[in-house]
Structure formats: C-alpha cells, structure tokens
C-alpha cells in the first residue's frame, strides 16, 4: 500500500506512466499470489481506450442578417464547442427556443419549449440553465432537465441541426461561454453544439422584434407559453472538438474454483480502482492554492482498496472455493468509472454468470471502529451475511442500501449484478496531495480484509447465487448536480448516518466557511427546506440563487444554531 501511494507512481493518473508502473506492480503482486490470467488471455492486463481530455478545435460561427451583412466570430471568448458536440458544419436559419427545456409528461408539469415551434433543419438558440423566477417546486423540476446534454438531445430529436447556447443577462455567469467541461465520451452526441458570448447573442437578436433581455424576463416567470421567436438571421456554424484518446489498463485475473464450480453463476468478482488524480490538474482535485499541482498520493483513495483486494486474493487463495474469484483492479475510476464500465460493457466473462461484485473504495481511514457497507439493498442475502461476518469482525457497521454510488460498484449495479461497497468514508485529505500513507490505519485495513474474506467465501461457497434486487433511485435525485448552479462550499460526510447533512469539512474561504460552518456541524434546514439526508440537500441546492443569502439551521455538539449563507456561482 505504501508502495502504491509513493512518489514513484506519481499519483497514478489514468493513462500516465505512473499508472503503468502501478499496474506493473499490481500484476507482479497478483502473479506472486497465484492469480491466473482469465481463460483465453495471455496476461492480466486488459487495456481500454478513454478520452483523457477535450478542447475546442477552432469552432467558428457566422451570423448573416437578412439585409446581407455577415459577422464572423471565432476564439474562446465568443464561441466554444460543448464537450459532447459532433464535429460538423451547418448553415441554416436561426430560431430562438427559450430555455430549450422539455419536461417529460410523467413529471406532472407541462413544460415544453418546443410546443409551438418547428425547428426542423434549423439552428436552435437556447438559454443556459432554467427560468430564474419560477416558484421553487417548478424550479426544482425544471432544474433536472437543464443539463446541456439533455437540451441537445431534445433539439436533435426535434430535427434541429445545431444547438447554440447563450447564458442570459439575468443568469449567473451572464454572457460568458460555457467552459469546456471534462467529458469521457469517446464520440459526439449526434448534433453540433456550442455556446456563445453575449456579443454573438446580440448579433443573433439584431433585427428581432424583441431583445434577449426582455424575452428572458418573460420566460423567467416559468410560464411555458412564452412563444419561441424566429430570428431574422441565417447562421453558419462549424464545430470542432479535439478529444485526446489515451489507453489505460485494468489489471484482471482469477483464482479458479478448487472443486467443481457451482452451477448458479460461477463467478464472484472483487475489485478496487488503483488510479488516482496524478498531479490533480484534471478537475476533481481539492488541493488548496498552495499545494496545487503536487503529487496527489491517493493513499486512502484508493491504494487502500487496491491493497485490500490484493490481500484478499492472498487470503482467499488459501481456502477451497466453489466459485471462481475474479480479481479486478480498475483504472480510470476517477474520471467517471471508465475502467469498470469498460469491463461491464465488453465483459471477459458473461455478466449473467457473475454472482456478486464486492468493491473497496477508501478503506484505510477507520476511526472509532466505524465501517460503512453500501449497496446492501442489492440482495436480500446481505443482511444476514453481514450480520454473521460482523459478529466475529466486530465493526461498528453502518449498512446503507443505496447502490447509486460514485464508485465502481455502480457499474455492476447498472448491469444488474448484486454488489457491495466497503468504505471508511471521506475525510479532510480527500482528493488532496495530503492523502498520504502515514495516515492509513493498517491494522484496521487488515480487519476489513478479514471481514470481506468471510463474506466472499460465504458467497463463493453457497449453492445459490444471491438474488438481485433492483433498488429504486431516490426520486429527488434525477439530474441532481446538473441543475445545481450554486456552490455552498460544503463537504458532506457520507460515512456517518445523521439526521441532516453532516459536514466532513468545508472548503476554505467558500460560502460555508464564511458562514461559520465547520466540520462536525449537521445542517438540518436550508432556505426553509428541512434536510434529512444528502438527497434533500441536493434538492435544496437547486432552489438556491447566487448571491442571495439564505438561512441555514444546523446543530453543533447537539446545540441548534442558525447562520446566513450566501451561495456562490458554480462554473
């Protein structure tokens, strides 16, 4: 574990030489234990391609007025392709479609920006985000369909040839182009899509019956019946996205069944991701200004889980087993579960032959004997299995049913495979260079391995594979973070169950910090919305507005307190 988190592996960023070295190290460890390549494969490496980053490849847009004058825009200040855009060149009349929002009828809200608008073969111009002044319940629904990918899909399905996004004068980040966000998709989404500046918007609206500002004002009430308007211009747009493709490697092998394999799903999979953030220059680093760009060691995230899986393989190799145990160390988890998704999408063993998947993500920071086991709702057998194994292991176990997790077990749940995730929870060093090996509780890590080994053995030896239960995704989640345009600077503590949102920390200088909130506080109400859990909190965030202070009620050491928090803009 200490080796994996050392400087030598340089933060193990997917596709980097540090990741290759780490993969070689894991390969050697697994072979030492006796882990074999999967049937028909020469070695333990399973490479896959991914998009390591994307940038605009020189998108251009020209606006031609009916009168004949043409203005051309180029450069990142005025036009930038959206990261999921196709490379395309389109010339077509422009039409303005409000916020470009379509809410499915199932939501019980009639909102369709395209209701009275024919956009076939047109360039559709829409506002970013969703109506600013709609009443909270409507806002919360609209927010879920405001993701730009969703807007592009809606436009494409209605026959539009391109989507142009404008950040309205009444919205946060007004007039600015949308930054190229990180997107791991290997290809475009089937439509040309770009965002443009307020100068471009002005050119588009020149000669229209109304101004963009006035139109947005009408739309912001949330009234869906504000009609779209034809713009008196023709647009030529050329979009180009350069996607940098790289190769990363999952390290995968197996311990074959020692007796005649069980007939009912003869594979059990245990895994952990071994990649981390490198030097943290790809978005999800939480390093402060002072230590930005340093090696992100990822000792807990997830050298700890990697070491646990290797130790687990070593322990399991000692015992007879009725199922094959597949050992998987994933890469490219940190950029969107890419390695485990690649496995599930092109599985080396049929997914319907996998009895269960056990995942280990951040298992090295145990405190007060607390261990969290997530995704326990994926099978009715887990309650008894966990109870039984924990009688001997003796953890203060928190058991959470939810399988919709930001870790590789989610890829397996998606494929309807029974799963579990083990974690000791987040902490102040999460995604920072300071997540180092000296802070790992090695003794407790060994106990986690022993505990998990008992569960794997019970699963591997059972006659019947555990039945899969599909857990419903909490309704209030929907598009979640896509609709959230504000930041509060809070770091939720996912490990500890609390009635409210327990803070594992606050981002220094962020809104929560400025409001006097700190680690250990439990937020129970924000902007009049009571908060019972992380989902309530995410839901409430959709209702906040930038720079508008809201009341936050929280408990600290059991004492109820209040403060005012002023949300900032998320970019």
């Amino acid at each position: 574990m200490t080796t994996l988190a050392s400087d030598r592996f340089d933060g193990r960023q997917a596709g980097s030489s540090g990741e290759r070295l780490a993969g070689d190290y894991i390969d050697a460890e697994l072979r030492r234990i006796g882990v074999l390549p999967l049937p028909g494969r020469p070695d333990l490496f399973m490479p896959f391609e991914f998009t390591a980053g994307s940038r605009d490849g020189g998108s251009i847009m020209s606006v031609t007025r009916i009168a004949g004058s043409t203005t051309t825009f180029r450069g990142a200040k005025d036009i930038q392709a959206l990261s999921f855009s196709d490379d395309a060149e389109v010339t077509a009349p422009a039409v303005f479609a409000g916020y470009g929002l379509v809410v499915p009828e199932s939501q019980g809200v009639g909102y369709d920006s395209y209701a009275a608008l024919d956009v076939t073969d047109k360039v559709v111009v829409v506002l970013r985000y969703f109506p600013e002044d709609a009443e909270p319940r409507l806002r919360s629904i609209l927010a879920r369909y405001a993701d730009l990918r969703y807007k592009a899909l809606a436009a494409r399905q209605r026959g539009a040839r391109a989507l142009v996004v404008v950040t309205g004068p009444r919205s946060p980040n007004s007039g600015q182009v949308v930054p190229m966000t990180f997107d791991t998709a290997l290809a475009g989404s089937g439509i040309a899509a770009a965002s443009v500046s307020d100068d471009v918007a002005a050119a588009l609206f020149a000669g229209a019956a109304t101004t963009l500002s006035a139109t947005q004002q009408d739309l912001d009430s949330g009234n869906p019946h504000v009609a779209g308007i034809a713009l008196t211009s023709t647009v030529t747009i050329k979009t180009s996205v350069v996607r940098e493709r790289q190769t990363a490697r999952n390290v995968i092998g197996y311990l074959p069944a020692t007796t005649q394999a069980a007939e009912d799903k003869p594979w059990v999979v245990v895994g952990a991701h071994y990649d981390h953030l490198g030097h943290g220059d790809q978005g999800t680093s939480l390093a402060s200004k002072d230590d930005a760009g340093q090696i992100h060691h990822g000792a807990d995230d997830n050298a700890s889980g990697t070491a646990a899986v290797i130790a687990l393989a070593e322990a399991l190799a000692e015992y007879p087993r009725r199922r094959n145990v597949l050992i998987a160390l994933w890469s490219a988890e940190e950029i969107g579960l890419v390695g485990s998704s690649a496995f599930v999408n092109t599985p080396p063993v049929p997914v319907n032959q996998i009895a269960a998947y056990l995942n280990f993500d951040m298992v090295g920071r145990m405190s007060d004997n607390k261990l969290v086991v997530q995704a326990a709702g994926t099978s009715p057998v887990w309650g008894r299995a966990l109870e039984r194994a924990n009688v001997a292991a003796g953890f203060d176990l928190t058991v959470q049913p939810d399988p919709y997790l930001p870790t590789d077990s989610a890829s397996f749940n998606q494929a309807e495979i029974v799963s579990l995730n083990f974690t000791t929870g987040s902490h102040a060093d999460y995604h920072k260079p300071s997540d180092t090996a000296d802070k790992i509780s090695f003794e407790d890590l060994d106990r986690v391995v022993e505990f998990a080994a008992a569960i794997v053995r019970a699963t591997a030896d059972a006659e019947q594979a555990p039945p899969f239960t599909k857990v419903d995704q909490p309704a209030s989640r929907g598009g979640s973070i896509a609709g959230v345009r504000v930041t509060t600077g809070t770091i939720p503590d996912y490990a500890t169950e609390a009635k409210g949102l327990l803070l594992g920390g606050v981002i220094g200088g962020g809104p929560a910090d400025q409001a006097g909130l700190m680690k250990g506080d439990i937020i129970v109400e924000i902007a009049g919305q009571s908060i019972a859990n992380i989902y309530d909190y995410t839901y409430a965030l959709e209702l906040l507005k930038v720079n508008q202070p809201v009341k936050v009620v929280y408990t600290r050491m059991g004492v109820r307190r209040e403060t005012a928090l002023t949300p900032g803009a998320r970019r």
Partner: protein
Amino acid sequence: MLLFTAMFTVHAVRALPALAGVLLATATLVSQAPLQERDFLSRVRRLTIEGRRAGEGYWSSDGRRLVFQSEREPGNPFYQIYALDLASGDAVRISPGMGKTTCAFFRPGSDEILFASTHHDPKSKQYQQEEIDFRASGKERRYAWDYDPEMEIYSYAEKTRAYARLTSARGYDAEASYSPDGQWVAFSSMRDAYNRSLSIAEQKQLEVDPSYFGEIYLMRADGSGQRRLTNVIGYDGGPFFSPDGTRIVWRRFDEAGLIANVWTMKLDGTDQRQITDFGSMSWAPYIHPSGRYIIFASNKLGFENFELFMVDIDGRKEPVRVTYTEGFDGLPVPSPDGTQLAWTATRAGGSQGQIFLAQWNHEKALAALAAAPEKARSR
C-alpha cells in the same frame, strides 16, 4: 424488559405536556461532570443487521450466546425470537415462527429458553396478514404494542425442540426472566384486569391502556406456584433477579403512565425500595453481575431522547449518565462476566432499533459512581 417502542407509543400522547414541565424542573440537575460515553463504552458496534428491527438481547450464562427478538422473516411482520452464537455468527430461530413474541431469556444450567408468545391464538395468521397489508398500504402508525391478552410465557428445550406453556391466565403475561439458579421465573402480568369484576372507571382504563393493570409475579420454572408480588396501581414490569438471587429489580410506572422509576424488592414482595427519582421515564433496569450498580434507560434529557444511566445498587447517589449518542439507547444488559454491554439503540440511523455491543469499563463505572453526588430530592 418491555419493548421500547411500546414504551414510546403507549405513553407518548398523554405524557408530553406533563413531561415538559417535569423536564424544565429537572433541567438544572443535568450533570456537569466531563464524563463521556467512551469512558464506559469502547469498541461500540452494531450486532444485529438483518431485518427491519431487533432488540432485547439477553446473554446465556456462559456469555457465548445472545437471545433476542427481531422482525426478519418474510411472512411474519412481528417479532420472533432468535439465538445468536457469538463465535460463529449463526442465528437460529427459537420461537415457532407464528404470532407475536417478545422478551426471551436463557435458563441457567439447562438447554431451555423462555419467551412470551401468541402462537396458540388461532387468529395469529390473520393478524400477521393484516399487519403486512397495513404496511403495504404505505400508511404509517406509531407502532403500538397492544398488550395482547393472548400473550403467554413458554419455555423451549433446544435438545427436544419441545415447547412448554408456563402461563395460561387471560391477560398479557410476558417480560419474564429466570433466577440465577434457574429455579424461578419473575414476570409481568395484566391478569388482574380479567380475573375480577372491574369498576366502570377500571373498565374504561382497560380499553385505553391495559398496562395500567401490570403487576409483578413469581412462579417456579415449571409454571407452578404463581404468586403476585406487587399491588400498586400502574404498570409494574420488566423484572430481573439480582446476581445473588435474593432480590428483584423492576420498573414501576405511576398511575397516569407518565413517570417510571427503578425499584428493588425481596422475592416475597417485601422491602420495596425506590432507587431512582428523575421524574421522567426510568425503566429497563438490569443489575451488573458485580451486584454493585444498576444500569437503566431514562428520557430525563428529552422525551424522545432515551439514554443509558447507572446508579448504585441502593440508589444513595445521583445516577451517572452512560450514553451520549443521538437517538434511542435502552434495554442495557451486561454480559455475565461484566465486561461487555448489549443494548438496543437507533444510533445507526432511522427509527428502528438494533442491538449494539460494546466493551464495558467496570472500573471506570465504579469510580464514576463513587464520585457521583449524594442524591438530591427533586420532588
């Protein structure tokens, strides 16, 4: 030994306004001592995981097993009794699987386990289905323990798998425990409501809350020689023997069911002594195997905030707070060697209890009790 949910719900509605006043009055008595939970409890952990809820865990005399009640089987939404092997983690069902059960206890020096059950009631299946349908309807109720008059005490012999019925009087018979020599059973019964003619006021009382008639009884382990030990209006329940077998500790509610206190008495019902005086619900007492102190639960700090406390065996000093964690903590039971504590808590989140286990620091407990102030008379 009464289920904590029952405790909660039966008295909740009527107790609130009166209790608020009591809490104000006692607020100034809250200890300022800088003690905390980890002084007494270490390696805290959740023991039961399977099923909707579990509670009332009691140790076998060798400390290797725990018997408890849990809702964990499809088809029966009510508690059944399980015995958990603390070495292997295997849990086996002890009760027949049908009807409602509660409050089990290992018989020392034998393979028998007692518990209370309604499985002989021909309507058991019907009640199970009604409860399943009710829950499926999505409605919520504050689950009320109904003091089913069909509840009777049984013993189960593990070797022969035979059940023996120990009580038959109409009225709730439950909350039973064996004496340390295994020869006696103390229990709570509401038979007084059914074996005589009631006044109109009493009749009304029975409809609202049968627990008003709860009294402590004693019988031999075979069910013979049943005799009544208490004779005070209000719910007397949850009796357990002292480690030397000479006394019984139990909790007594006042007539209104608002306030409960811990009491002890001799086996013949004489020498009844009140140990606690918080003016709140103090209940579920259990004597530590050292015989020196009683661990119990009280909502002294807030109506829905039950915490564990302990008090010296004679109640001379102020009780000392044991738990400091949000949610319900109750039904404490120390292991026979006195080094561990099993109790029922909601500290893992949600409103449904599960059994927790921790190392118990007996030395620190003795020191804290010695340092506790002399009891102040609050009322």
